């Protein structure tokens, strides 16, 4: 990652993020309910109990998923 980058890759798209941000704060900013999502940070699932402790930094790859209709 080039120095000075201010982006993460969120669900495959660039997303602006200035500096380190707690995951819980980002989830709230995105308007999501923690009980209805699951999160993977750099290919590792983040347990819900760690949302307050884990910090997201520019260059991170974040996947946030939920359930949709399927068979």
């Amino acid at each position, binding site marked *: 990652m080039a120095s000075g980058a201010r982006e993460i890759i*969120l*669900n*495959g*798209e660039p*997303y602006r993020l200035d500096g380190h941000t707690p995951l819980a704060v980002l989830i709230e900013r*995105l*308007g*999501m*309910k923690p*009980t*209805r*999502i*699951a*999160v*993977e940070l750099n*290919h590792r*699932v*983040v*347990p*819900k109990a760690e949302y307050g402790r884990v910090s997201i930094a520019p260059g991170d790859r974040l*996947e*946030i*998923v*939920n*359930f*949709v*209709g*399927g*068979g």
Partner: protein
Amino acid sequence: MAAAPKDSNMDDTPLVLGGRSFKSRLIVGTGKYRDFAETRAAVEASGAEIVTVAVRRVNITDRTKENLLEYVDPTRYQILPNTAGCYTAEEAIRTCRLAREMGVGNMVKLEVIGDQQTLFPDVPATLEAARALVKEGFIVLPYITDDPVACLKLAEIGCAAVMPLAAPIGSGLGIRNPYNLRIIIEQAKVPVIVDAGVGTASDAAEAMESGCDGILINSAIACAKNPIAMATAMKMAVEAGRMAYLAGRIERRLYASASSPLDGLIR
């Protein structure tokens, strides 16, 4: 006087998956519905206790979208996340790990697709993923080809059930190979759930009459002209087919066998 007839409501054992018991033998999907309200109504009408869902990225830009779980209550239904759309064992395992973190338990419908046009399973990749997921403590219900050997191997690995297809997903062709299905059922040491290909109620009844333990249906209900009525029809067909299986059908014979007595005929 003849002996009193036995209770028509034959005692049935529950469907047991990963140590959990279910009264309903119909599992329904939640894809392809017009909206969540229709999904909820169809699920309700089906009497299903297990409901499949897919795992997908949250829409970041449009947060107005409602969540499926507001309509299909996970405290009331066993949610069964699938790995639909996964073409490798790695993708499927990753999807299951995320699904488990949703907090709805560790039961998963494993599908590793091998071909886009038929959506037939990639059998070696399904076996590989099943092995890893069982090791990680998942209750694995794998979608698989109607291949008796593949089903035996999945059971040996420790899958809680095997889910052979009746026909391609969404095809509505019914049971294409009833003889393979019979072999799978006869050999099975775990529940057999027919997954995919059911078109209408008679297909569901036929599968249950052949002795399978359950059926998973999505398209045949969701894409029917009246999904709620079809959900009800499938519920009845699964119950009728199951009861007919327990009751024990008559043998097929080529020639007639009179129903009325021959004695006492007027001449």
